């Protein structure tokens, strides 16, 4: 007679396990579809929301970058932190930031070029057409510092900053609105109560945070000062010699202004990098927060997976008892249920991944300038959370199935 063999019982083969779990999932299509959908919604939410958050970050970063490269900005008034702070704009100015200050900055060895900037609104009129515009008073190097390009004519001439000839450069939108198909170059226009000759038209760019160069009228800084009756500048835009020279340019700008302002540093010098870093951080944190909120929906999906799997264990009691009678070990039964939970959440994660990317693509299609790409970390975290929660919440039902008493399971019809 053959004795009970003592050989190790080989476990169920992985492909069999997967096929068994798949068949079990397919046995109840509605249940499976609902579970997959709930996980998919969670993953899709992570993908779309982080695409929005990170898209906002990229958008702002792009906008800043388009201001110009290696930019250092001097603004009147002192901010305590020295970092970028939007409140600077309304800080009272103790001492004027003047054209002479700007000119003095040209001494800085790390400074390649610079442009003073004075901004105000006025009216432009030609041939009876009237339009309110933003007027920027500056000098000839503004176009390089701000990375702008000329479409027609030329930019402001290189001349004495204190005098300035009555010449203006206009943005593309202004040109279209005032002149239509007519040539604009050489035309005389009235800006405020002064007459200017148009010498150039800017190339359309549609960019520039807060100051769209397409709707800008640029005149010599001295004339703008007279027009707005103002001695102080709005900004001095500085371009450093190189990226490495940005800190040096900042230090030199501060030193020179301090000397000129009786040893008091009453201006704020910010670098583009600092602004970028601030926004980058701010919006990065926001994206993570949004991802966290979306992840909660994944946890909810996990709990749903658990409950549905528990119901499924109850429904399949007889089957579990049978499997035990046929020689299934507790771990084999645990594994089949875990595999099923893992497959459901994996399917949900894949569907959600596709849906989320489709959603992000749709947003990009609707808003072409908005770079709504989900960051890789968020996508990975979303997929991992979906899988982990599915498996984690699958453990309890799997345990319960394995612990079923086979006799009672079998006697249940």
């Amino acid at each position, binding site marked *: 007679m053959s*004795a009970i063999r003592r050989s190790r019982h080989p476990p169920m083969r992985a492909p069999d396990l997967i096929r068994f779990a798949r068949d079990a999932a397919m046995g109840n299509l509605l249940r499976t579809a609902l579970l997959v959908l709930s996980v998919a919604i969670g993953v899709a939410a992570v993908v779309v929301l982080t695409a929005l958050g990170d898209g906002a970050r990229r958008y702002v970063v792009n906008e800043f970058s388009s201001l110009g490269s290696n930019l250092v900005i001097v603004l009147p008034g002192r901010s305590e932190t020295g970092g970028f702070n939007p409140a600077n704009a309304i800080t009272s100015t103790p001492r004027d930031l003047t054209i002479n200050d700007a000119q003095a900055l040209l001494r800085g060895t790390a400074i390649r070029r610079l442009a003073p900037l004075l901004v105000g609104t006025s009216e432009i009129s030609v041939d009876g057409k009237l339009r309110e515009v933003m007027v920027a008073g500056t000098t000839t190097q503004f176009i390089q510092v701000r990375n702008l390009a000329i479409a027609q004519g030329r930019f402001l001439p290189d001349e004495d900053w204190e005098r300035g000839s009555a010449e203006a450069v206009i943005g593309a939108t202004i040109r279209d609105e005032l002149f239509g198909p007519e040539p604009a170059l050489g035309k005389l226009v009235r800006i405020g109560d002064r007459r200017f000759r148009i010498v150039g038209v800017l190339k359309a760019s549609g960019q520039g945070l807060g100051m769209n160069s397409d709707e800008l009228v640029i005149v010599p800084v001295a004339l703008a000062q007279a027009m707005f009756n103002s001695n102080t500048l709005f900004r001095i835009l500085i371009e450093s010699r190189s990226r490495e020279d940005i800190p040096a340019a900042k230090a030199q700008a501060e030193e020179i202004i301090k000397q000129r302002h009786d040893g008091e540093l009453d201006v704020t010098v910010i670098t583009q990098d600092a602004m970028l870093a601030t926004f980058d951080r701010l919006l990065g944190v926001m994206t993570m927060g949004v991802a966290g909120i979306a992840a909660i929906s994944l946890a909810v999906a996990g709990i749903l997976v658990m409950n549905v799997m528990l119901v499924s264990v109850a429904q399949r009691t007889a089957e579990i008892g049978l*499997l035990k009678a046929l*020689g299934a070990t507790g771990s084999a039964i645990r594994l089949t249920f875990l595999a099923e939970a893992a497959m459901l959440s994996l399917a949900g994660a894949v569907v959600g991944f596709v849906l989320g990317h489709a959603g992000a693509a749709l947003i990009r299609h609707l808003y072409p300038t908005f770079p709504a790409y989900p960051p890789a970390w968020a996508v990975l975290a979303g997929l991992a959370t979906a899988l982990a929660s599915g498996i984690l919440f699958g453990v309890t039902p799997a345990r319960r199935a394995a612990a079923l008493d086979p006799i009672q399971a079998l006697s249940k019809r």
Partner: protein
Amino acid sequence: MSNPPQIELRGVERVFQLGDSQVHALRRLDVSIAPGEYVAVMGPSGSGKSTLLNLIGLLDRPNAGLYLLEGRDVTTLSPDEQARVRSERIGFVFQSFHLVPRLTAAENIALPLTLAGIAPRERAERVALALADYGLEARADHRPDQLSGGQRQRVAIARATVMQPAVILADEPTGNLDRATGEEVIRLLEQLNGRGVTLIIVTHDPNLGNRARRQLLMEDGELRHDSALEGAAK
């Protein structure tokens, strides 16, 4: 007599706790069954027949007493070891067939092989053989709900035998079948017994019970009558 027993129960008790009261499903039971025997277990409802079969099949543990299977004490085995014994030595046939509804006949028959981790190729060969043995070739891809009762029970028997167990335990295997189909199922089981497999059938039908070479009569958890002992006594 000369053969050592394959199944040996000594003083086995099984008590179920139902609230405050205790149900003695089996009381101090002593039974020995030799390899290749054909045993019918009979008795009124609630007398403990199924409980006995479940104990022999290692689906249940006695509260007291000893169970030796092929000379080895199996009551102290771990659940996984018991699962292995069920897988390799024991085949079950149930009154209500217990086929997995979403699996085809062939897949149901393959289930014990799959659970035992047997390679797909060998599995396919053994399933094909089993399908042929029980005249189910044409039904291989049918689901249980596309099969008649007799066909379902044949699938269940094929599944119970596909691991070539030493013992077949059948709890009222004809209970859900008409007489002719039941006869046919019993003949199949008897054929297996003819090839040396120990066959233990629980039945209410005296005609079926009398076909067995040995009858055990249960009553109120006790063994009232054992035709083997009677023969020895005379």
